[in-house]
């Protein structure tokens, strides 16, 4: 049984076909990476899966349950979480407050209008754990807009992890990073427990081959190939798309 299954989804914006019969699946514990040139429709695919917009045709299943018609916030409660390509954080709030918000999302008391939030010990404890685990304790009171780019990108992932998802959609986690930061991020992703499946959009080939169990190649809104890293590396069509033929995709 696949954890996430996308079945022949199509989406057009006016006359522009963004997704054309795209199908893929993610198995429990899998690290599935999506690659493709700019404009291939990768982020649109994420947006479609997380119901940011409705698809024209096709179906999407989470744990064999159809999720097309659900509102996007509901999906988090079903175990699906995502990050954004451009940092989508609460810039004017502190690191601590950002984590607070992410943690409350699934709590039973999130509709409570009486008792102060700060008194909730579980929130304080969990926030503390996260801050310590990722070396952010000295950044806790800092406004997020003042964090370094790498720290912001890390927080971007942490917010999505806070809901303890079954599947995490990472949208270009290393975008805009220096080689050192990229390496760091790649390690962090690899260290994530297999209890969380990953669907990752990535451009950096080193990172792709370091983490991928399977790779799906997207081009002009269509799936060109879906297979093991070896298959993708040796595929002529893929090489054509990326390098105009002749060159090697090396790890």
């Amino acid at each position, binding site marked *: 049984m696949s954890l996430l299954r996308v079945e022949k989804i199509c989406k057009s914006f006016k006359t522009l076909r963004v997704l054309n019969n795209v199908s893929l699946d993610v198995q429990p514990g899998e690290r599935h990476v999506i690659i493709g040139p700019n404009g291939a429709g990768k982020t649109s695919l994420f947006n479609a899966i*997380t119901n940011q917009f409705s698809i024209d045709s096709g179906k999407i299943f989470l744990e064999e349950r159809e999720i097309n018609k659900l509102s996007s916030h509901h999906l*988090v409660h079903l175990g699906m979480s995502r990050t954004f390509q451009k940092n*989508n*954080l609460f810039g004017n709030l502190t690191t601590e407050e950002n984590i607070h*918000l992410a943690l409350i999302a699934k709590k039973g008391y999130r509709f409570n*209008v009486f008792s102060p*939030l700060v008194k909730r010990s579980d929130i304080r404890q969990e926030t503390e754990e996260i801050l310590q685990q990722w070396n952010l304790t000295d950044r806790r009171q800092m406004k997020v807009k003042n964090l370094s780019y790498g720290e912001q990108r890390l927080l971007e992932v942490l*917010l999505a992890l*806070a809901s303890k998802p079954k599947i995490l959609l990472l949208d270009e986690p290393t975008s805009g990073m220096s080689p050192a930061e990229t390496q760091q991020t790649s390690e962090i992703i690899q260290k994530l427990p297999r209890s969380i499946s990953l669907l990752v959009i990535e451009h950096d080939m080193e990172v792709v081959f370091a983490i991928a169990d399977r790779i799906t190649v997207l081009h002009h809104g269509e799936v060109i190939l879906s297979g093991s890293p070896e298959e993708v590396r040796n595929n002529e069509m893929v090489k054509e798309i990326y390098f105009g033929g002749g060159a090697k995709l090396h790890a």
Partner: protein
Amino acid sequence: MPLMLSDFGMNLVTEIFIMAIFAMSLGLIMGYAGMVSLGHAGFFGIGAYLVAILGQHIGNTYLLLFFSIVVSGIIALITGAVFFRTSKFYFLMITLAFGQLVYALFWQMKPLTGGADGMSVSAILNFGFGDLFSPLSIYYVMGVAFIIAYILLRFFVESPAGKITKGIMENESRMQALGFNVRIYKLMVYALSGSMAGLSGALYSYFNLYVSPDLSGWLFSGQVMMMVIIGGVGTLFGPAIGAGVFIFLQNFMSSYTERWPMIMGMLLVILVMAGKGGIIHWLQHIQKAVFSRKKITQDTNNQLKEEEATS
């Protein structure tokens, strides 16, 4: 405290208490939910007229106040449900239209509301301890109401729901992506705000003993917004201070000139052109300036000590 004030002064402070509740209700959605409503006076008028009209048939204060709160809240829920589907620009304009609609309804339904002439209020405050109609007793009632309103809002703002609402104001799309049903929170805070505005209108009826359509008019919506701006958007107590300042100003000015709308307009323009902030933010600025100067001197001292130690 009331012993220090003359009857006139006491009436003024009573009015400030009522307006402070109204201002705080608008401050709530402006400062904690990022919603700018240009028709908030609509709820005020609804609450006021409810007491005026129903008060002719029902004597129970608790019931009348309850109705004002609930009816305003429900209207806020219904209108909010439709209004929130649109962008912020639209919301602004639609709330203005809403306020004007309420004004027009009160104006046109003459047999019920007295039309442009308004109507007098016969209802009297009675919480079970006897009729309260002296300025002093009304003063106390409004003062207590203000305190209760403030405490309720304080609880809300510090609660999980309040923090979440603030998060929605900061970054709505991320809140949605984190799993929050953004719609419900917006409706919640708008209903809370609307019902509190309705309550302040109801209290006003008991205080002023006369209501007119202007209570839902454009000018009044602008005035309460000024109170919020003067006091500072983003704080809970700021709008209350703004209400105090504004009422004083209004009373002072009105005794000199009839051209109060023009002066108010100029004040608005000046406030905007001079940069927003409001009183509480200015106070915070001063606080920061004083505090950081202390910190700078302390840091320099530490630095000097380090340098001495190493050389």
